[in-house]
């Protein structure tokens, strides 16, 4: 029983990790329909920049995340301008390959700057909590809470924008409040910038429980795609449910069946769900 509770908390924390990583991707995928495979790389860059400000420069934790997030916003905007904007009329394939190219670039860049070695990011949030006999670190609790809050806020912000009313999303957003009447390419820029910013917040929170390396985004990339497809494209509640459900399924199958199945479960569930409901769990069945 203790094991079950412990794993439930572990699953929740992992769900928080997945959700946080998925947010930015859902944004871009949902609003612009771009499968941004470079998202994991942005997440990685965000982690390294946070690390840089926190450890190398010595800025406080929250501030380090903030500065890194702003820098990543710029990177995201740059990515949109240089890569996705010229491709705005091309089919998905082009986006995917361009994103892969960008991902290669970011990874090589990070390796050139910070080296290939694993790095550890220590944060001021330390200590463990004991709940019902289960041990869980404070950092993980922060992850769960922040994931839920950020996702809920975001869902509330752009709920109506997903299916067409793209511009409204930005209008409701405080960044875009002053930009009423902006053109669609501005929306794209802001969306990608925002997604990179969110990826950094996620990375800043999640990186401390694991390690930093130039390929740290890879492990998340595929799973996060599974999650947002499972939940239904562009559905933020779907991303929340999908993230937590898959994480708990993963932890539980790994615990009670085998770790191999645990690794595959996200994809098996995805295949099963799409076989029954080809548009994901939460879509309002809006196919073009």
């Amino acid at each position: 029983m203790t094991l079950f509770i412990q794993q439930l908390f572990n699953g929740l924390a992992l769900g928080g990790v997945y959700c946080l990583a998925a947010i930015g991707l859902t944004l871009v995928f949902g609003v612009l329909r771009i499968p941004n495979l470079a998202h994991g790389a942005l997440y990685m860059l965000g982690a390294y920049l946070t690390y840089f400000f926190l450890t190398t420069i010595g800025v406080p934790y929250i501030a380090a995340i903030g500065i890194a997030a702003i820098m990543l916003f710029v990177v995201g905007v740059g990515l949109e301008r240089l890569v996705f904007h010229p491709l705005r009329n091309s089919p998905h394939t082009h986006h995917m390959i361009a994103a892969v190219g960008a991902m290669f670039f970011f990874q090589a860049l990070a390796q050139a700057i910070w080296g290939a070695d694993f790095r550890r990011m220590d944060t001021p949030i330390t200590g463990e909590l004991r709940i019902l006999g289960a041990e869980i670190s404070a950092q993980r609790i922060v992850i769960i809470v922040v994931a839920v809050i950020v996702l809920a806020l975001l869902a509330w912000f752009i709920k109506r924008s997903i299916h067409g009313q793209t511009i409204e999303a930005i209008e409701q957003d405080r960044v875009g409040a002053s930009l009423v009447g902006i053109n669609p390419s501005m929306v794209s820029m802001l969306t990608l910038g925002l997604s990179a910013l969110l990826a950094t917040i996620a990375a800043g929170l999640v990186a401390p429980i694991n390690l930093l390396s130039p390929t740290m985004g890879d492990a998340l990339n595929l799973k996060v795609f599974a999650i947002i497809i499972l939940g239904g494209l562009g559905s933020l509640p779907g991303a929340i449910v999908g993230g937590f459900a898959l994480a708990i399924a993963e932890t539980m199958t790994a615990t009670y069946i085998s770790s191999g199945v645990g690794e595959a479960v996200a994809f098996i569930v995805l295949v099963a769900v799409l076989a029954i409901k080809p548009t994901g769990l939460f879509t309002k069945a809006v196919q073009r």
Partner: protein
Amino acid sequence: MNALKNPRLLGMLAVVIVLAAAPIFFAEQNYAMRVVTVGMCAAIAVYGLNIILGFTGQLSLAQGGFFGIGAYGVGLLTTDFDWSFWSAFIVTIIGTAAVGYLCGLIALRTKDEYFAIFTMAIGFIIFLVISRWESVTHAHSGVNNVKFPEGGGIIDFESPVAMFYLVFVILLICIYVTHAIRRSSVGRTLLTIRTSEDLADAIGVRVGFSKQLAFAASAVLGGIGGGLYATVVGFIGPDSASIDKTFEFLMFILVGGMGTVAGPLLGSMIVTFLFELFQDFQAYRFIVLGPIIVALVIFAPRGIIGYLGGIVDRRSRKQKIAEARRTADGASPEYDTAKSGTVTSGIDPEETK
């Protein structure tokens, strides 16, 4: 036959002749032979991708997985089960066809992004099975000493040159088959589906069934490529089924030109050589290669063949149009035909939304 007047065919012919002659210059260079031969194995799988992506317009991300099934089918059957290469190869091809068909049954219920991610999941599951099912696939230990094809005492396939020509001939067959498919009503069916499934429905195309066939066909070519790859390299590990392979294939097809007949071959060769060329930069090669990939996608979105083909098409169409005008003498020249092929009508829907 007016094949000689067709610049596309001429181009294709040129590529094929250059390749066919390659061993004359590189026979002693094992490295060059190896790179080209491995590149051709990949090219076969890319032709498979061309059927489902280029002709049918469905982005399948399972191709690396099918490539892996092909490689492991041949690898395991020739080692652990001690089959001859040829029987293993044929059984493997049938096997990939079956797996492809079954996956297609479910996969084709989904559309667009869902199809892409769904096939990505399939590819990833295949990868996980290969890398985790230790008792059968030897997981990360890989499969060592995959048999060479039996030459029946006539050809010794241990020689890289013989192996080169084996892969080359099979590649040519695959190219011809894709070419024939494209020209035939089957190909037209697939192109119809690519343009609009509703329209395809309306003119009597069996959309589901055709997509299914295309998916299975693409899986088969993936399996063929993988099977040959296994015997060419002799040792295979789970990386031969990884998602990276899929992206590699996508890169090949995109650089060469989607939906074209020569594109996959040219793309595979060019990208393979680019990768080898930039090896000297080691870890930092992707600082250069990454932007090159992005630039290619942006500036030559239809690939090299698509780009060249566009020029050829415009020219030949201009001729034909002029001819049609002359014979019908009642021309209606109120629009500019010179723009044909490059500018499409209207405002971009994404921009106006």
